[in-house]
């Protein structure tokens, strides 16, 4: 078990390094010197030449520009680790400032979506398998199919439309009511966010939830057909024990192992929704930076997202190892 965790941990570090290296190469790729570009930009904006000089100098030192690439990479990576995400050309502000709140909101929404997905999809999928071909099964199979095939931005648009036309609402879009958007964090703001967030969870999580229902149903059906389930039944166990103690823990395996993979999906899914509903998430910022060729910002976001993904995967692996002895003994 220890070697397993260690292995996974090393893998995680390796993946992180590779992604950072690739990002770094992308950052370095644009022709011309970053400093030159920066200087030009700042000059264009009529910044005081002294400030320009000092800013440029600061970046030169920080990123070791002009030295060999290993040192440059090291310095860049180090500053990333310290939380310095670089400088956004487009917005003319440090990237970390831009990402700040958006990042944490995105994380919270992603995690909440995952939890939502689990709580909704696992029981529904399980029951659909147990009651195969029942009315319950048929309806959720249909709904899940719908959920998988309707793109989330359509759901978002439909929601917008419905709430504006039917409810006369003006505040569906966004994560906060207008009066809280710029307000400091407070209990009231938090409560206000909760009021809005469930719609977002629903819209963002619908596709994944539907997919998970289908996976769960199929896995549960497979598992119920396994001989060890017959063994369990023949002990005289109640159906509930057979389903929960014996079948569920096997059936849920692939769903847990897919958690890590779901993060990027949720983030990209939420991006589109965030654009439609004008939510302050990280996705739109990434899109923006990519469109604006804002390399530092884009790469920083990528690195941070990868970090989240890799950590998510690591946690999923740990959970799996804890659940499944076969994995625990593998190493």
């Amino acid at each position, binding site marked *: 078990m220890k070697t397993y965790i260690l*292995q996974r941990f*090393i*893998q995680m570090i390796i993946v992180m390094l590779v992604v950072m290296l690739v990002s770094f190469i992308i950052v370095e790729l644009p022709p011309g010197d970053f400093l030159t570009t920066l200087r030009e930009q700042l000059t264009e904006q009529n910044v005081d030449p002294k400030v320009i000089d000092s800013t440029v100098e600061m970046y030169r030192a920080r990123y070791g520009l002009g030295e060999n690439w290993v040192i440059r990479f090291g310095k860049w990576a180090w500053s990333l680790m310290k939380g310095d995400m670089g400088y956004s050309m487009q917005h003319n502000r440090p990237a970390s400032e831009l990402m700040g709140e958006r990042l944490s909101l995105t994380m919270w929404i992603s995690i909440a979506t995952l939890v939502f997905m689990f709580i909704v999809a696992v029981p529904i999928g399980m029951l659909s398998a147990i009651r195969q071909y029942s009315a319950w099964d048929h309806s959720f199979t249909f709904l899940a199919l719908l959920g998988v095939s309707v793109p989330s931005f359509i759901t978002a648009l439909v929601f917008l439309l419905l709430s504006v036309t039917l409810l006369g609402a003006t505040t569906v879009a966004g994560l906060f009511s207008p009066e809280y958007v710029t307000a400091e964090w407070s209990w009231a703001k938090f409560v206000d966010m909760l009021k809005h967030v469930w719609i977002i969870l629903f819209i963002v999580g619908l596709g994944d939830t539907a997919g998970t229902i289908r996976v769960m149903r199929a896995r549960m059906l497979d598992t119920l057909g*396994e*001989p*060890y389930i*017959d*063994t*369990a*039944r*023949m*002990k*005289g*166990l*109640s*159906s509930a024990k057979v389903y929960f103690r*014996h079948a569920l*823990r*096997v059936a849920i395996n692939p769903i847990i192992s897919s958690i890590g993979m779901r993060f990027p999906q949720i983030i990209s899914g939420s991006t589109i929704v965030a654009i439609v509903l004008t939510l302050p998430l990280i996705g739109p910022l990434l899109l923006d930076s990519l469109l604006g060729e804002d390399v530092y910002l884009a790469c920083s976001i990528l690195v941070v997202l990868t970090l989240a993904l890799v950590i998510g995967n690591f946690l999923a692996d740990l959970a799996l190892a804890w*659940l*499944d*002895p*076969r994995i625990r*003994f593998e*190493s």
Partner: protein
Amino acid sequence: MNNAPDSDKVLDIRNLEVSFRSIAGTTRAVNGVSLDVRSGEIVGLVGESGCGKSVTIRSIVGLVPSPPARFENGEIWLRTRRGMTETVSLFKDTKALRQIRGRDVSMIFQEPMRSVHPMMTIGKQITEGILEHEVVDPAEAYERTIEMLDLVGLPNPAGQMNRYAHELSGGMRQRALIALALVCHPQLLLADEPTTALDVTIQAQILELIRDLRERMSMSVLLITHNMGVVANLADRISVMYLGKIVETGTVEEIFKEPAHPYTQGLLASMPSLFSQPKTHLQSLRGVVPELSMVPKGCVFADRCPHVMPKCDETPPVVELRADHSTACWLYADVEEPHGPDAATTLPAPSDDGAQAESVPSVDVIQLTRSEPVSDTGEAPPVDDGSVQLQIENVALHYPILRGLLRRQVGTVRAVDGVDLTIRRGETLGLVGESGCGKTSVGRLVTRLVEPSAGRLRFGADGQLEEITHISQKEMKRVRRSMGMVFQDPLSSLNARMNVRNIVGEPLMLHEIARGKAVDERVGELLEMVGLRAAHQSRFPHAFSGGQRQRIAIARALATEPSFLVADEPVSALDVSVQAQILNLLLTLQEQLSLSMLFIAHDIAVVRHVSDRIAVMYLGKIVELGNALEICVRPIHPYTEALLASIPLPMPGLETVRELPKGDLPDPANPPTGCRFHTRCPYSQPICAEEEPVLRPLSGAADHFGACHFQDELDLQGVEEIGDLSPPAVVNAGENMSNTQAT
């Protein structure tokens, strides 16, 4: 409960009818089955796949999901702790049913590998059963579980408690499952093909265990199996089932000595036994078990029965032949005294498998000149006069075991570890051994599907031997034209998306032997040669039954007119009667096309039946090699003796007195030192663990090789001796059947 059966019966099934509804219609899987099991008795329910055995046995405990199943008729009475209980009426009352399961009646299943929960410790799984039924504290349940594990013969029972399924071998899992089933002392154990998935020596151990536990726990057993040998050794009474009906019931002795129903006779005759005349055609039933929806009216066996008569359109009555022997067949309905003393000899016998029987007279085997293997014993290799088809010298196949992130090599599996073999033209060499012994790897090596790690392969397509050890794939393609291959699982070895014409014709096109129309013609010929219709070229593999698919695979293997065929377990996935058809086909084709063959199988009876010589493999080494009959009559290696002893003989009352090999097969990655068999050998001496015996001829017999230190001293038992001891019943029954003319 006034119609409850007498208390002597543990189980009484009366006229059970179960049907399944689907969109395709209703099929009746169990069609009026009556069956009983008395106290302390072991009853065998025998039949081929798809005949309804499993549904019957699962119905007893309500494990058949309904819907789609419908219990149309019948009662199942079971002796429980609350007296006789009718279980069909309980199917809706899951609580009552649950109290019976595991406590009054238990069940073990066919696939021990998959029947233990993969993510729960053994101990937890078993104690769970106790805690479900009895009010005991967990510590006591824990203790009892350990005792039970000890009783089923698991080594270090306390240590097994915290282990998981994947840490146990198949045999150990089946033992654990038996412990799980019996921990609450049920009166009846239902065993659904409990040994089918296990290796032969392990199968023998498990059967022994069941027999032993029956006494010690004074329980009854209902055992279902397709293997006549298994019931002969274990059961007191037998019921033979065919397409949802019991066609014959009787004591083991009666059924084996005087099988009455044509189906029983056919089943018995189609098994290659250790007594049959090798290389002769087996009596096989024609055709295959039909789909349930195509069951003939009247007698269900009518479409395959060699004695079918007009009356068979009506359902035959159950005729009592003796007190404990009954059959459902018209042949006996009118006979005034059906149970005369010589009933058996007057019984009509099934004729040979239709089509093939006509075209092929029984094969007369010309005794081949015996060949010696090339071995490191200094034997002169045979002169290369073109009479040798294949010669492999000191061939090895080693796999690295890789671990960890960096795929470091932490060990080596020596799948094949220095094997010498010679196959002469026209000869069949049988290669026999249990799983993991490397026999399949040898087959893959000689066809160069895998690269040998060491050694030399020489193959003579049609003339001199030619070195093929390291020739390029392109050259190998030319050589492969002379090699055919048939594998175990016809479904997975045939591309499901290709039609039969392309499957069989592919080698023709690959080797540019034929093109376009010519392919169709040749494929048609090939199909007819293997007993299929040429017109079926455009069909896809799934439209055929298992036996037919194997015929297609054989046709494909023979498309390029090879002189050499590798057959790797070609019949082990097939039903008994179909198995006989395929063996017959292989024998016929070998004769017609003068093929040389490497025949690989785990069942020494099957191997003996088709081979001229046999090589016995154990953990990557050949431990014995010699003439097929000789090896079975006078084995010189203890492992061969063990293999022979493990084959359940279809001869009741014949207890094998020989000691069975102990324990499990060792890990091939870590074989024992010295003689690899010493961990399981009953004759093992200190030297065996230290020095590795080499394969050398038995003194005084230049063509019989063994790799045992004591082969010249040991007096091992083969089969013929045992055959002589017993009444010659079965041997003769088989003979009689073929001699008696059908009415």
